[in-house]
């Protein structure tokens, strides 16, 4: 497989990450302060115009990348690693008799049940109850997105748990815990890893949706969802630039995250066969 074919799909995402990391060094204005007259349409000075309080939309959009993406990254990391370990433990133990088996089966049911409520609803309730801090937002999202990773890993673990090399590892004197992490996990983590780019995309969408609904981080923090929400009333007055640019940024971010799936798939598949 050519390098281009492998890494090509990830290019937009890598670009996005670079913008999120270093963009703030390049922006023309402070994203959280009033820098000009309000409601200026896009011009040479303000490529994306200014919003109703006079802040520069371009600077805010680029600064927002860091905020939205950092949260999404943390959430994805926690949901994926936590999901893999829990899926591993549940999958290995749920068929046993005795207390471990009961807990495993119960946890399995709980994971299935957690599907019932849409992610956004849980986000609204948790943030509504615990306040819109980065911590509560991240925890809420990680909780929402972990069950799917658990489920994916668990399904794979159930396939792997009867493989012969596990018995061979037992005959080699390895403890059950060591066998789980040395043999079962590497052979069952692929679905969750491939899914992590989707998790990333969803966490961006949900956090932005919460921001849009006004339950996310408070202004003047430049979060894309909140920016779109503030700009809605502007749209009706014909001022399209305040909400269009963050909305487009959102769509692009999520689309590039989805595209990374192709690269992830090719990477993990390649690792299994060399």
């Amino acid at each position, binding site marked *: 497989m050519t390098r281009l074919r492998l890494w090509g799909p990830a290019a937009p995402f890598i670009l996005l990450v670079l913008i999120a990391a270093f963009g703030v060094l390049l922006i023309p204005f402070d994203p959280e302060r009033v820098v000009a007259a309000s409601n200026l349409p896009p011009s040479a000075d303000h490529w994306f115009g200014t919003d109703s309080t006079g802040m520069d939309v371009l600077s805010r959009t680029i600064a927002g990348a860091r905020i939205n993406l950092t949260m999404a990254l943390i959430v994805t990391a926690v949901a994926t690693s936590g999901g893999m370990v829990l899926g591993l433990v549940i999958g290995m133990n749920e068929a046993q008799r005795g207390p471990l088996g009961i807990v495993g089966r119960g946890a399995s049911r709980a994971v299935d049940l957690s599907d019932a409520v849409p992610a956004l609803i849980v986000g609204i309730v948790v943030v509504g109850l615990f306040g819109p801090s980065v911590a509560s937002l991240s925890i809420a999202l990680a909780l929402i997105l972990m069950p799917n990773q658990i489920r994916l890993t668990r399904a794979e673990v159930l396939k792997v748990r*009867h*493989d*012969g*090399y596990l*018995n*061979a*590892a*037992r*005959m*080699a*004197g*390895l*403890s059950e815990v060591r066998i789980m992490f040395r*043999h079962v996990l*590497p*052979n069952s983590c692929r679905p969750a890893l491939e899914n992590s780019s989707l998790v990333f995309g969803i966490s961006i969408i949900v956090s932005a949706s919460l921001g849009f609904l006004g339950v996310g981080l408070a202004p003047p923090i430049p979060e894309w969802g909140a920016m779109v929400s503030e700009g809605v009333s502007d749209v009706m007055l014909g001022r399209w630039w305040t909400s269009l640019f963050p909305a487009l940024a959102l769509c692009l971010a999520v689309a590039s995250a989805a595209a990374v799936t192709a690269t992830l798939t090719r990477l993990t598949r390649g*690792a*299994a066969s060399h």
Partner: protein
Amino acid sequence: MSWNSDAYISLLAQGVRKEYGSRSARFTAVETVDFEITSASAIGVVGESGSGKSTLSKMLVGLERPTSGRITLNGANIAQLLHFRGGRQDMRTSVQYVAQDTASSFDPRRTLRDAVATPLRTLRGITGSEAEDRIEAVLRVLMLDPRQLDRLPHEVSGGQRQRFSLARALVVGPRILICDEVVSALDVSVQGSVLNTLKDYCENRDVGLAFVSHGLPATAFVTKELVVMRHGHIVERGETSQVINAPSHPYTVTLLEAYRRRRTAATSAAAPTGHAR
């Protein structure tokens, strides 16, 4: 525990029974069986699929827990032995188990070297050049090329993989080896050579062998005693030659008959008589 290569080891199953299933659907795989294998045995366990022979062999090495009865290694209950690390090491260095080669006999992501070196490292603490020497020695006995060690499992043939499975078990120098259907999946031509290797190894090094299989001829070749299982019971046991030539249980008779008929059919189908069958 020091490794005494002349130690006599006895693995004894008493009144052992294995049941599966829930309250509504209970299935008994092994029905209250007594069985012993020692480091001086060469005993075969034959029976059809579902006779309980595989379950019995797994219980003997602790991979399955009996529903009732006990299994002891030189008097020590293996359930307790396997509970802690020292006991596990003692047991696994004395008794090893090899199963039929399948697509999942080896971790597909790790090399064959990793598979063979791991028991040596975990059970005997041997690494480095001493480990390399021992591994090469056992590979040579099993007629394997050490250069294949760096390959992945799917890159070698089924026959070679089965030998590597044996290598993995034998590298720690067990006193008893339990083989479960180790030649059943191999081509007939390959079966013969693996059986020969196995028989020579166990006889030359005084290793006790339990050979579990549904193939009578192969089992008869490598064993001195024979045990016949059916529906979880042991229906006959005795010297191999005696069981084969003078069976006492009607089921054994049927089993032998089936083999003879198959062999005759095979030979006459191959014979160039021109008769349609």
